[in-house]
């Protein structure tokens, strides 16, 4: 964990437990896009949000780091 992005072409990010390898130049938005385009659409539409393990929301333009865990949560379920 926390290997330096500058030495890697890809960092490991988890979305709903699914492992993705993504360029460190991208953001939370792109991790969702790579995971599931529909999930991103739901977040943009305000029907879902991105959260950390504690349920706190994370902005779509937030930076990623190696080992970061993201969760897409439906507002209806909440």
């Amino acid at each position: 964990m926390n290997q330096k992005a500058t030495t890697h072409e890809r960092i490991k990010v988890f979305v709903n437990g699914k492992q993705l390898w993504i360029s460190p130049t991208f953001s939370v938005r792109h991790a969702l896009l790579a995971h599931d385009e529909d999930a991103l659409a739901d977040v943009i539409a305000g029907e879902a949000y991105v959260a950390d393990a504690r349920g706190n929301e994370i902005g779509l333009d937030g930076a990623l780091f190696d080992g970061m865990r993201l969760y897409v949560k439906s507002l209806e379920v909440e």
Partner: protein
Amino acid sequence: MQVQINLISLLKKYSGVGATILALGLTLAVLSSAPILSSAPPFGEAAVRAETATGAEEPSAAPQASVPACDVTLTILCVTDFHGALLSEDKDFATGKPVGGAAVVGAWIDAERQNAKGPVLVVASGDMMQGSAISNLSRGEVVIEFMNRLGFEACAIGNHEFDWGVDVLKERIRQARFPFLAANIFSGGGTKRPGGILPYTIVQKGDLKIGIIGVITEDAPVVINPRSIKGLKFQRPEEIVNKIAAQLRKEGAKVVIVLAHIGGSQEKNGAIVGPIADLASKLRGVDAVLGGHSHTIVSGTVNSIPVMISGSNGIRLGIVRLKVDACKGGSSLLEESVKPTFAEGVEPNKAVASIVESFRKKFAGQLDKVIAVASEPIMRGRGESALGDLICDIMRDAVGAAIAYENSGGIRTDLNKGSITGGHIYRIIPFDNTIVTMYLSGKQVKQALEQGTTEKGVVQVSGIRYSYKPGDPSGQRIKSVTLEDGTPISPAKLYLVATNDFMANGGDRFTVFQEGKKIRNTQILLRDAVISWMEARQRAGKEIAPPELGRAELLQ
């Protein structure tokens, strides 16, 4: 109104191992509207510290409460990753209530100042300007006005502070009545400071001297346009912070705060993880670390140091309250919280609202400003289109790529003959997509065309010509591909390709871009590239003409 800036250490250089080479004592009194470092042009070699006697302007600060000489309650308020969210339409996810907006954030800061039982420090952890139409059109000027009005006392440099280039950042640094901090950015081969950006500042609150150190993620160069940071080096922050913290203690600082544009998040069990935790775990002599960059909410401790990240876009306000021994130094944590900035039940800060409204009116006009003239209509389409060709040509030109791709769905309307305004370009390219570069093999270049060719349309391109049969099975639709000069694409050769960040991450099923080499998000907004290109044509006295079609040949 006047701000006292005590440039004690003019020309003091910090080598990265903490050596002090030269110190001059110099005190400047400058008007609040003057540059904070009037004698040191930003990005020249400069002073390393600004010392403020009263903090920055405190227009709405409550009178400081009377406290015992040695026992001080210090309240630190932190906004991070504001991203120009002056007119927030955000809602708190948990409650659905409106949150944020500059005037509401101002009200929350006002309220904290009114209620605090001791000095209040207002700081930011970077990425404050880029991200909204008003802020982007003013190149961040309105955000600095907002921060000046609320009396921010320091701001860490974030990666997005470089989005509009060094010259604009210099302007913003001059405009700000608070210092921009980044102790781990160096120029001159890694031994000098870029002027205007300071490593730290000292704020005096009554008898209490507070040291504030700024740092940025050392990975910043991968998320900043290289042209904006030419000649700058970003070093690991922890050793630098420890050296400066020790130095600040020697100079009498009883509290040392780190503003870190460095991200992290928090696990279910409360453990803080990520680069901000790595940093905090290695620090000594630091009383609090206020992070950013990841737009997360973090509130806890690492290495017995309070560590906080207060979300983004002004929808949260970070609060750290410390009990400080102002005589001997040392602090203990009284409160650490990241509060939603609910809009209901607060009286928005009128002065801030007025600033935002004046810029909103100003730039409503700018969207109508003519930036270029089209000699004839330039149409979009699902097949090859003149507007698609033009946008791809501009994208390619902006980053020096050999080939460019743009999804047809990303171009939302046509360009009419005659005057072109900024508003037109916003309507043509409404999405805030950035340009991404990568290397693709010739085989992958062809694969991208395959993925972009359906019976409904094709992907827009520049730099290549191809023929296709949309009715053929998927994977067999592209019949030939050459560079624009007719040279056949070599399957094994690598080509520098540009596309938008949506496609680069698999949008519209373009999976091939995720397999590229050296993928780099340039952070250049495609819309900005188009506007800049058209403005340059206008300055050269040239109209905008549609490119000649013929890049995608439909075979029957």
